[in-house]
Structures are given as C-alpha cells and as structure tokens.
C-alpha cells in the first residue's frame, strides 16, 4: 500500500491557478494531494473495477453528471498504470461508420474541453493527423474515407503531395522512395494528449466529488445473490454495491469469467516505442497504412511510434521482436533522418480486441453487472465517452443513445459495426 508523505490537513491548496501558484508556500508543500488515498468502505452505490482512464472517467461522470458520489474505483495496482500509461497518446475521430463517428467525435469534443472542466492541464495538442497515400488505390480509399467523415459531420481535408510535404517535410519525398507519397488526408482536430494527465485529472475530479479511489485492491470474485451481482471479493475484503461495472480492457475475459460471462474478446499485445529526445522535427501525427506505422513527437522531444498488433493471444505486456523490427524498418524508410535515432524504450499493453473492432458498453446479461470493453487498440482516445456513457447506464439503468449500437447482443443478432476497415492501421 502506497503511503504518501505530507498528507495532512495543512495541505489544502487544491485549485490549480496562476493565483495559487503565486500564493503557494515557498517550497509548495501546502498543495493538497491530487486525490485521496481511500480505504474501501463495506458498501457503495456503485463499484467500478479498473482504475484506468475509462474507470476513472466513469466515476467522475457518475458524480458530476448524475450526482452519484457513493462510488469506489477499485484498482489492482496503481491508477493509470495499464493501457492508459502504455498508449501513444493520440486522439482522433476519423472513423467510417455513423455510429462510430458519433461516439469517437463525442470523445474528442469532451477532450477539447477537459483541461478547463477538470482544472487539470491534459496538454491536448490538436496538431492534426495525416494519413498518407502511396498509390492510386490509396488515394481513392482516402477520398472515400474523407467523404464518409464529412457526411458524418467531421472535418477532413484531402491533401496533395506538396501539402503533405509542407506539413511533414521530413517524410521521405526522395524520387527513389519505396513508398512514394502521392497525397493524404488530414483531420486537423486530431492530435495528442498527455496520457497520465487524463487518469490523474479524472481521479482528482472524481475524488473531489466524493469518489473513493482504492489502489492495491484486486478483485478476486463476485458476490452473487441468486443470479444478481451484489458486490465483489477483493484482496482487501468484501465490498458490496448495487451495481458493479468493469473497465479492465485486456483483462475483461478473465474478470467476466468470474461472473460466468463469456465475452467475444481476445487479448493481444500492442507495442509502441520512443526514441531519444531531439529538437522539434515533427509537429503533426503521421500515419502510413501502407507500412502499418504511425509517428508523432512528444513534448519531451521523443519520437513516439507504433504499429500493428502482435496477432498472437497474449497477456505478456511485451511485444514481439518481429513487430518491432517491422515498425523500425518502416520508420527508417518513411523518415530517413530518424534512422540515426536510438530507441529509448519499447513496451506493450494488453488490448481487448473484438471481431468487429467496436467497443462493448452495456449490460453483461448478469443483473447488476455492467461492462465497458472491446476498445482494442483505440481505448485511450475514447476515455471521456466510455466514462460518460457507462456512467449514464449505471445511473439511469438505460443505455446512453451513443452506446445503444454497441451492445453485447450484437454478437448474437449479427448487427456488427465492422470498423476494422476504418482503423488507422490494419490490425
């Protein structure tokens, strides 16, 4: 159990503002901790399992939008330490189908107002995301994609080769390039967000509204009354609740199985890596479907890049060398000047992939038990909407309009939303 020093009543400065920065004690020891280290109570109105972005956002919106504050977020390790801390921080809403476009763009809109909403700088940088085209077929496909986005009311702009070059001059425009760049499409509202800040901001906001954030508390089973889930067994004792929700990404199958629920989920490793830090060289996000890799530069100067899934079921949280090699080869080809950079870190997260690449936000079929999963490789960008819609369901008992198409029943009815075609990378 983590113990934080300086955590006493004297540390009361909690609002982040220029005035408080100025008025704080000389060595800033009077700042309140961003969130309370809560001990689990025996009973809550709602329990959310998983202290990642989705779980914390759910707790925040339960308290903020619905006034349900007797809520606990149970995290087996530390908050934001799973996929929330392992993604490449990109946010975008360039999806193909109306249902997905509505959902993902709602998330992006919430991200646009989140720093103000949470009084926590999430460092949203809407630097634009360029998808490159390397053949006539790519150009046709990107036109279709951009038009679909425009029909869905989401801005998209088709770029010619010269425009791509002006935005990302370090891309390989050599006449000998193996993947000549013929053009692209840009979503200018897309960009990056500081990932830890999203977890910490929601945790701070939720905690201030009365939510208990309980770390080092792994769920080991469900307490049932008849068929109904009425609580959870944890490594820190039994906790009862009217409603229990799961937001545990790659561990969804394991957790749901404890309640007798079988999911259409397979867990895979999705890897990413960063280079050493360099001066600003890339101020957009670039994605090349042809080589299956995407790049951006962090505020620290690292080139952040990743690629396709390791298509082997895995809970290892580490990627294969085969994919690393593919991503690095693509990087050296598409950005020849990056070939001289050294790789600083490489890691992977365990992502929850469903066959139609669309999420599941709804009931599990077991009364009292709800789920938010199936985001696969795209969970980070959807944290606000995942939390918003799950909170709506927990508070009102009804699916949020945006989440209605994303129910578990679609795997029986066949009404799939096959977004695989619109994912940035063909996984």
């Amino acid at each position, binding site marked *: 159990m983590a113990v934080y020093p300086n955590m006493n009543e004297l540390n009361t400065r909690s609002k982040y503002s220029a005035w408080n920065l100025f008025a704080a004690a000389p060595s800033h020891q009077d700042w309140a901790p961003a969130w309370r280290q809560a001990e689990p109570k025996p009973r809550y109105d709602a329990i959310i399992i998983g202290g990642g972005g989705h779980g914390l956002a759910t707790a925040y919106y339960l308290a903020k939008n619905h006034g349900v504050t007797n809520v606990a977020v149970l995290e087996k390790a530390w908050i934001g330490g799973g996929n929330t801390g392992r993604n490449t921080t990109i946010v975008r809403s360039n999806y193909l189908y109306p249902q997905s476009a509505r959902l993902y763009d709602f998330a992006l809109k919430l991200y646009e107002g989140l720093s103000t909403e949470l009084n926590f700088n999430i460092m949203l940088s809407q630097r634009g995301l360029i998808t490159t085209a390397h053949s006539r077929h790519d150009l046709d496909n990107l036109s279709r994609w951009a038009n679909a986005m425009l029909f869905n009311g989401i801005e998209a702009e088709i770029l010619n080769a010269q425009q791509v070059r002006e935005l990302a001059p370090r891309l390989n425009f050599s006449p000998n390039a193996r993947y000549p760049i013929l053009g692209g499409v840009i979503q200018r509202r897309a960009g990056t967000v500081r990932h830890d800040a999203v977890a910490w901001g929601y945790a701070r906001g939720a905690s201030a509204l009365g939510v208990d954030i309980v770390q080092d508390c792994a769920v080991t089973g469900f307490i049932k009354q008849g068929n109904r889930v009425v609580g959870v067994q944890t490594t820190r004792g039994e906790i009862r609740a009217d409603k229990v929700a799961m937001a545990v990404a790659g561990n969804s*199958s394991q957790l749901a199985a404890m309640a007798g629920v*079988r999911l*259409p989920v397979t867990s895979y490793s999705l890897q990413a890596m960063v280079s050493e830090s360099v001066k600003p060289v890339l101020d957009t996000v670039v994605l090349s479907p042809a080589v299956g890799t995407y790049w951006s530069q962090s505020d620290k100067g690292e080139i952040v890049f990743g690629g396709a899934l390791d*298509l082997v*079921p895995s809970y*290892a949280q580490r990627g294969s060398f085969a994919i690393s090699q593919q991503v690095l080869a693509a990087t050296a080809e598409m950005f020849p000047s990056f070939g001289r950079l050294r790789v600083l870190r490489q890691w992977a997260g365990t992502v929850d992939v469903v066959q139609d690449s669309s999420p599941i936000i709804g009931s599990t079929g077991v009364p009292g038990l709800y789920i938010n999963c199936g985001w696969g490789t795209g969970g980070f960008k959807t944290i606000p909407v995942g939390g918003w819609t799950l909170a709506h369901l927990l508070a009102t008992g009804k699916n949020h309009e945006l989440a209605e198409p994303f129910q578990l029943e679609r795997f029986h009815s066949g009404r799939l939303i096959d977004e695989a075609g619109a994912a940035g990378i063909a996984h």
Partner: protein
Amino acid sequence: MMTLNCPWCGARPDNEFNCGGTSHIQRPALDCSDETWGDYLFGRTNPRGLHAERWRHTFGCGQWFNVLRDTVSHEIHAVYRMTDPKPQAAREILP
C-alpha cells in the same frame, strides 16, 4: 525472435507463421439458437495461461498445426498435428 517448431520444417522464426486462434472449437448443430451460434462464432475463453491454438507455417510449408502455448510467458508446451487429440494438459483446461 520467438522460434516455433513446425512439425514438418523444424525450428523457424515466428514471423514465418500466422496464428489462427483458438483450436478445437466445435461447430454446433445448424438448428441451434442465435445465442449458441453467436458464441460459436465470437465467444472465446481467452485464457491467461495455457492456450491450445492453431498456427500455419504461412511462409514455409503452408501447413496448419496445433500449439499448446502459455499466453503469459509465451512458452510452448506442445506442438501437435491438426488431427491429433489434445494433449493431456490441454484437456484439463479446455472443455
């Protein structure tokens, strides 16, 4: 790079292979319910630990075979042919 033992070609690097997902899934009767059919198509145990799965030596002999592999350590416990029965360890974890 991870090495897999193809039953026909021997040890080869894993990027010569494709994983075809869970093995030993039985198709239910065609007059089953939508729920049963949906579970057959999409429902997966997705175990944390031993997993019996199909692999294909795509960039080699092209043959399919079964592998019993740990999804946490990636350790391979058995390689057996498509028509072979499940190894004992697989029988314990799979229905």
